[in-house]
């Protein structure tokens, strides 16, 4: 029962994080950026090289959405859920009966934290930057300095929030600063 509650908490954190990305990528929100999602992709993500034909930019944006962001979001949803479920499951099997023992597993949480972030960044790279039909549409600098840095912080916040809501009480000391945050 406690495991199901944890999974519900995990979904309650994951779904808004993914929905936000879906909304920004696929919905026409005229108060964001250039007025619609396609224009935003064209303006903020695609290569602005003036020697590339303008006529292709709209189609390039659609392809980035259909063959890039769409698959990336599916992957991220699955990957984030899986990595958190593994963290929760391992926490259950570590047989930790008091918090002083849990603090010894900060390294384990850190590994999950790093794997979650690097997995996200690598998948960004594979899907948005290496995949045949998309890599040449996206501006190199935008990819390096905007998409990857945003992904780093977004994933870090997501994983930490998941850790807050899904880590068992005895396991909380393994999550850095969590006890201090919850105590206040």
């Amino acid at each position, binding site marked *: 029962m406690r495991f199901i509650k944890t999974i519900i908490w995990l979904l309650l954190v994951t779904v808004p994080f993914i929905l936000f990305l879906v909304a920004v990528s696929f919905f026409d929100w005229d108060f964001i950026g250039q007025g619609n999602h396609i224009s935003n992709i064209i303006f903020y993500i695609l290569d602005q*090289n003036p*020697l*590339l*034909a303008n*006529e*292709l930019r709209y*189609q390039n944006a659609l*392809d980035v959405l259909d063959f890039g962001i769409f698959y990336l979001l599916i992957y991220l949803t699955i990957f984030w859920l899986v990595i958190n479920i593994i963290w929760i499951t391992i926490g259950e099997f570590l047989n930790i009966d008091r918090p002083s023992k849990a603090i010894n597993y900060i390294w384990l949480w850190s590994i999950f934290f790093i794997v979650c972030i690097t997995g996200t960044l690598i998948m960004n790279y594979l899907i948005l930057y290496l995949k*045949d*039909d998309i890599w*040449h*549409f996206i501006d190199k600098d935008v990819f390096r300095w905007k998409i990857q840095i945003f992904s780093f912080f977004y994933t870090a916040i997501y994983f930490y929030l998941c850790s807050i809501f899904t880590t068992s009480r005895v396991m909380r000391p393994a999550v850095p600063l969590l006890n201090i945050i919850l105590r206040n």
Partner: protein
Amino acid sequence: MNKIIIIILLFFIGHFQVLANENCVNDILSSSNKTNVTLSKNKISKASQAFLFFDTSINMGGFINPPSSAYKLFVSELIKKTPLISKNQIFHTYISTPEPLSVNKIGGITTKHKFYECKGDVPQNQCHTRKAKFSKILNFLNIAPKDSLTIIVSDLFWEVNELAGDNRDKVEKPFVNALKKGEAIGIFGIQSLYEGKIFGICGTSAPYENAASRPFFVILVGNKDVILEFKHIMDEDIFSTIGIDKVEFNIFTNDIISTPYYAANWPSTTFDLSEGISKQNVLNEDRQDLIEFGVNREHEPLNISFDLNKVQTPHTILVSDFYTKTLTHQKRRDSGSCDKQWIKINERENIVFFKNQDLNNLDFDMFNTKRPDSLQFQRNKEYLFQIDFIARKIGKVIKYCQHSDQSSPNYNKIYDTDKGCSKDKEISKEDYIIIAEKTPERRLPSQVEKFWMQKDKWSFSCERSQAIMDAERPLFPVLNLDTFGALLIDIQETNFKETSVSQMNIAVRLNK
């Protein structure tokens, strides 16, 4: 059984996909068919009527004195062969006004001196002052019936003022009107033996008697194909006898491009397949209207060369100042509507670049990464390029150059040329003029090849007349023919509109 049905279904789905793709390519390439339309024009081989005008001014008489002058040979042949290019012939002689000449008497043009004697009430001592009024005969062009052919035979011995001021219009306008009506102007210049006196050279009263050879001219105005047919007949029958080196011919027309290359109908020598570019089946179809290439990531430019003489109407002035317009389609999908499968990139001038023109040889390049303004294309995709090669001008484009080879004795010297600066530095016309004025010793002789009418062999001016007469040149040129030549070139240039020279369809796969 189920497996067999699935395999059959897959086969048909695949087959329909190929058909759909092929139809899209057909749709895209159908816009190239405009070039074919120009090829399907019917050729006219005979004019409805031929109007022949023979200049019988006194200076023309010397052409019939030698026993076998080119004039006699040509005019005899002209009279005989005109029925091959016209249904009916009407002959005239003229000095100031045309006078009809019956067919029975036409043979006398090459044999009887009385044709070239003073007629009417002109006193004998004033006879030599009567020059043929060429501009008056040209008036006939304004009233000539449609589909007729006008042939004027003359030595073009101009009145001094006939090509200057308002009188220039009288010569120019009939030619301009002819071009605007879609007619062509053909002009033969033929060096002929001459025995006689030439009167009225630059106002001198004494005739010049030492000319052993003089040019005469045959001007034809009418349908381009008829004129070219006439040239062809004369080539076979008479010019080999007269000597090809003694004959010049040019045609002026607005129908400059006669046999453009189009679609994939290009000679194999057109492409210089450099490193990284190879022939490849891009669309996986057997198409005759496309040339297909694969271009690797590391590649040299694709060089495209062709010969203008193969596409222009023969004997016309070469077109110049080229650029290209390229309509591009990028393949994005294997299924769906054609505009989803192939994304259109509007016509651009920065895909195929004009590189060089050396007389009739043209060079263009494509996929040249060294050109900073070249449109870039995403790799790992297929493209259809419909390239239109366009000429903005006709006639020579003069380049001004400065020698840049430090080891050359001409280092830093300047020259003008119509063949491009090659490895030398190109400078602006303004800079060329400034350098030439300040340091005339730096200016090298012009390398611009003159039009034949402007060469010394054919033309002279009054300033040089005495020197020519003193030198007793056996070959006596024509006064101010260079001005007439310049006028014809000017008419051609002014009436020329930007025109498509040829069109090419290529399919390219830009490999990863």
